[in-house]
C-alpha cells in the first residue's frame, strides 16, 4: 500500500499475510461466520505474538512497532486483515491501547501488557445507535459521590462479544470524556445485533446506571485532543482494512474476467467489461492513494490529518459500494450464490463504510473542520 515501505515493514506485512493464510484463511472466516467453528483465544494470542496489538504500546509494556511509525505499521496489518476479512476487535484494541498509552492512569497502564499480547481485547464504543459519531454520542455520565454513573446506549460496537474491556465515550456536563470499563461491570450489557456483515459481529452496548470510580476516566474530561486523535486513528485503520478488502475483491473479479468464457472469448476481452474493470480499478487506485495520504498525515500529525482521514473515509466509503456492486455485476450469477466469497466482501465493506462514520458524516465533519 505505501510506496515507501521499509524492509522491516515489508517483512512485517508478509509475515502477517503468511500467518493469516495458514491460520485463518477466508475458508475459516466463513466457517466462523456460519457458526460452524468459533475462534479460539489462540488466534488472538498468536497475533499478539506477531505484534499486531503492540504497535501503540510503549516498550516497557511489551510494545513497539517495526518502523517506529505505528500508524503506518498498523495500516499495513489492517490492509492484510481486510484482504482476508479477518475477525476480531483489532481496530478497537489498537485504539484502546493508544488511549491508555496517551491518557491512562497507572492502574490502566498496567493492562497494556495484556493488550499488547492479545491476552485482553478491547472495543471502542463511540457511536450512538442511530449513526451519530460525535465525541459523546448516546451516553451520559453523571457525577456521583465517588465517581460517575453512566447511562445510555452505544451502537455498532465491533466484536463486542470478544472484548474484555470497553473504551466508552460519554458526555460529562455536556463535555466529552472517555471511560475504561471491564465487560463485567454491573449494569453494562452487550446486546448482539443481527447484521449484514458475517465476518465481524456487532452489538449495542447498553449502560443502565453503571457506577464507576473517578479513576475509570481516561485522559481529561473535556480533553478533545485525545478523542480526536483516537477518531483519526480508528478512521484510517478502518479505511486501510477497506482498501485491503476492495483490492482483493477487485483482483478476484479481474481473475474471473480473464477466465470466464462466453461467445467463444473470455469475457474480459469485451470492451463493455474491460471499461467497467478500468473504472473499478481507478476506484481501487484512488482508494489506495487517499488512504496512503491519510495514514501518512495521521502518522505525522500533519495539520491536514483530520481532513485527510475524513476525506479518505468519505471517498473509500463510496468507492466500497461502487466496487462491490460492480464486482458482483461482473461475476454474474455465480456472485449471487452463498458459496462464493464475493458476498462476504460485499457485506463487510458495506458495514465498514458506516463504522466510525459514514461518508455523509465525514463530509459534514470536513465542512466543520474548515469552519463552514
Amino acid at each position, binding site marked *: 500500500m505505501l*510506496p*515507501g515501505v521499509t524492509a522491516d515493514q515489508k517483512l512485517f506485512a508478509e509475515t502477517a499475510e503468511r500467518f493469516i493464510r495458514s491460520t485463518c484463511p477466508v475458508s475459516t472466516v466463513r466457517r466462523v461466520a456460519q457458526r460452524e467453528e468459533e475462534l479460539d483465544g489462540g488466534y488472538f494470542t498468536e497475533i499478539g505474538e506477531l505484534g499486531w496489538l503492540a504497535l501503540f504500546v510503549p516498550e516497557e509494556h511489551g510494545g513497539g512497532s517495526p518502523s517506529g511509525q505505528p500508524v503506518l505499521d498498523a495500516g499495513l496489518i489492517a490492509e492484510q486483515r481486510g484482504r482476508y476479512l479477518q475477525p476480531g476487535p483489532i481496530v478497537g484494541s489498537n485504539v484502546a491501547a493508544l488511549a491508555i498509552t496517551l491518557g491512562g492512569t497507572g492502574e490502566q497502564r498496567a493492562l497494556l501488557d495484556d493488550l499488547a499480547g492479545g491476552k485482553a481485547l478491547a472495543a471502542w464504543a463511540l457511536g450512538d445507535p442511530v449513526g451519530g459519531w460525535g465525541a459523546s454520542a448516546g451516553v451520559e455520565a453523571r457525577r456521583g459521590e465517588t465517581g460517575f454513573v453512566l447511562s445510555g446506549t452505544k451502537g455498532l460496537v465491533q466484536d463486542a462479544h470478544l472484548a474484555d474491556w470497553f473504551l466508552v465515550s460519554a458526555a460529562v456536563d455536556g463535555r466529552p470524556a472517555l471511560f475504561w470499563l471491564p465487560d463485567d461491570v454491573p449494569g453494562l450489557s452487550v446486546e448482539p445485533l443481527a447484521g449484514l456483515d458475517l465476518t465481524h459481529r456487532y452489538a449495542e452496548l447498553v449502560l443502565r446506571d453503571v457506577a464507576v470510580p473517578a479513576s475509570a476516566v481516561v485522559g481529561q474530561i473535556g480533553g478533545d485532543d485525545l478523542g480526536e486523535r483516537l477518531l483519526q486513528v480508528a478512521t484510517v485503520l478502518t479505511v486501510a482494512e477497506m482498501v485491503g478488502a476492495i483490492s482483493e475483491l477487485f483482483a478476484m473479479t*479481474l481473475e474471473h*474476467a*480473464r477466465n470466464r468464457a462466453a461467445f467463444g*472469448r*473470455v469475457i*474480459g*476481452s469485451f*470492451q463493455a467489461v*474491460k*471499461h467497467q*474493470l*478500468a*473504472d473499478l*480499478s*481507478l476506484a481501487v*487506485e*484512488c482508494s*489506495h*492513494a*487517499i488512504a*496512503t*495520504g491519510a495514514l501518512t498525515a495521521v502518522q505525522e500529525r500533519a495539520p*491536514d490529518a483530520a*481532513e*485527510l482521514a475524513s*476525506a479518505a473515509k*468519505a*471517498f473509500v466509503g463510496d468507492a466500497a459500494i461502487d466496487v462491490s456492486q460492480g464486482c458482483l455485476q461482473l461475476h454474474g450469477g455465480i456472485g449471487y450464490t452463498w458459496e462464493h466469497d464475493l458476498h462476504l466482501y460485499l457485506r463487510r465493506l458495506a458495514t465498514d463504510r458506516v463504522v466510525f462514520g459514514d461518508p*455523509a458524516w*465525514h*463530509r*459534514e465533519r*470536513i*465542512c466543520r473542520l*474548515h469552519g*463552514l
Partner: protein
Amino acid sequence: MSGQTADGQATDSAAADSAAADSMATDSAAADSAAVNSAATDGRPADRRPADGGPARDLDAYRREVRAWLAANLEPRNDDAPVRLRGGDAANLSPERVAQQRELQRRVYEGGYAGITWPAEFGGQGLTPAHEEVFAQESRGYVVADLGIAGLTTTRVCGPTILAHGTDEFRRTHIPRMLSGEEIWVQLFSEPGAGSDLAGVSTRATRTDAGDWVINGSKVWTSGAYYADYGLCLARTDPTVPKHRGLTWFGVPLTGEGVTIRPIREINGSSEFCEEFFDDVVVSDADRIGAVGDGWTVARTMMVFERLGGDPDETPRHSGARELAPDLVALARRVGRQGDPVTRQLIARAHVIDLVKEQLDAYVATLTESGAANPNLGSYSKLAAGTLNPVRAAIGLEIAATAGVAWHPQDTEASTTALNYLNGRILSIAGGTNEMQRNGISERILGLPREPAHDLDRPFNELRHN
C-alpha cells in the same frame, strides 16, 4: 509528471512516457524509443555547458547577468497574472496584441534568453535546465511575451519535434524564428474524420513530377491557428498500405495560397480552436519532417512532448494551503446556502474530489519515480480528471440553482459557474478520451486482451473511414 512543462525537463521521463503516449493512441505501432531518445539528445544539450567555471559559479554569474538584463529591458509586472478561464471573447488574441507579443519575444531572443536549453547552432543558448530555471525565477516579476496557446505549442511541442526529426536545413531555417516570435507553429493533427483514431487521418499529400507535394484535406481542433504562421501537418502519402505506414509530416505555411482557416465556435462561446482547409496547397520536399511513410514515429514523439507540455489552463492551481473548495464556498455564500445540509454535502464532495485527484497524482508520481511501476499509470490520473471533473462541474450548477443558469448581465462572477459547467468535460475528451484511457488501463495495466482490430493489416484505402 504532468507538472513538467519546460522543454528541457521533458526528456528525463520521455522514454518512460513513450509507452504512456502510446496508450493515448488507438493502435499499437513499433516502439519508437529510438526516436524519443534522439529527441532527448537533440532537445536538451545539457552537456554543452560553458567551459569556464563550475556549474554553481556559472549559475550565480548567470543570475546576476539575467537580473541586470531584465531590469534594463523589460517592464516590471504589477500584479499576478490573472487565471485564464476558457470562454468568452476575452480569450481570443487580437492581431495587435499578437504583434506586441511577438515584439516582446524578439527582445528576449535578441537578449540571448530564448531557447535557453536549445542547441546553439539552431538559435538556442545551449545551456542547462538549471539556467532556464534561473531565468524563469528571475523573470517572474517582469512582463514577458504571452503568445497564447499556439505560442506554447510552438516551443513545447512543435519545436522539440522538429529538433528531433527535422533536417539541419529545416532546423536552421525555422527554429531561430520560432524562438524569436517570428514564427508561431501549431499542430495539424486531428481531422473531422479522425479524432481518437489519429492514424486514420485522410488528408492527402501527393507527390508532383517536380518532386513537390500537393496537400488536400482538412484539420480540426487546432489551438490558436487563427494567428499562427505554420502548421506541422500529418498527411497520408500512401493510402495503399496499412494506415500507420502511409503517413508523413510536413511544415505547411498557413498564410499561403489554398489555406482557409475558420474559427470553431465552442460551446462556451469562445474560439480558441480552428479548423483548416487545404486546397491544392503546394509545399516542397524540403518541408518534409521525417522520412516518407514514417509519420507515425514522428507522431509518437510529438505525443510525448504534447503530454509533457500540457495546457497550463488545465493544470489545477494550488496556492499552498488547501482551502475548502473555495469557488463553491463562495458560491454557496452568494446564494445564502452555506448552512444548508445538502449544499454542505456537495461542497465536501467536491473537496474530496480535489483531494483524491491530488493524492492520486502524488501516488502515481511516487510509483513512477520508483522505476518499477507500470509506465502507463499516468492514465489513471487522466481518467480521474476525465471522470471527476464533470462531477465537480455539475456540483457547482447544483449549488448555484437558479443563479447558475440566469444572472444579471454585468455579473461575471455568477456566469463562471455556467462556464465551468460548459468546460467540465474538456479533460474527458481532449488529449485522449475517457474511453481511450479505459482501453489503455484495461489492456496495458490490467493485462486484458486487446480489441480485435480490423484495420492494422489492411491497406488504408480498403478500410471504412469517414
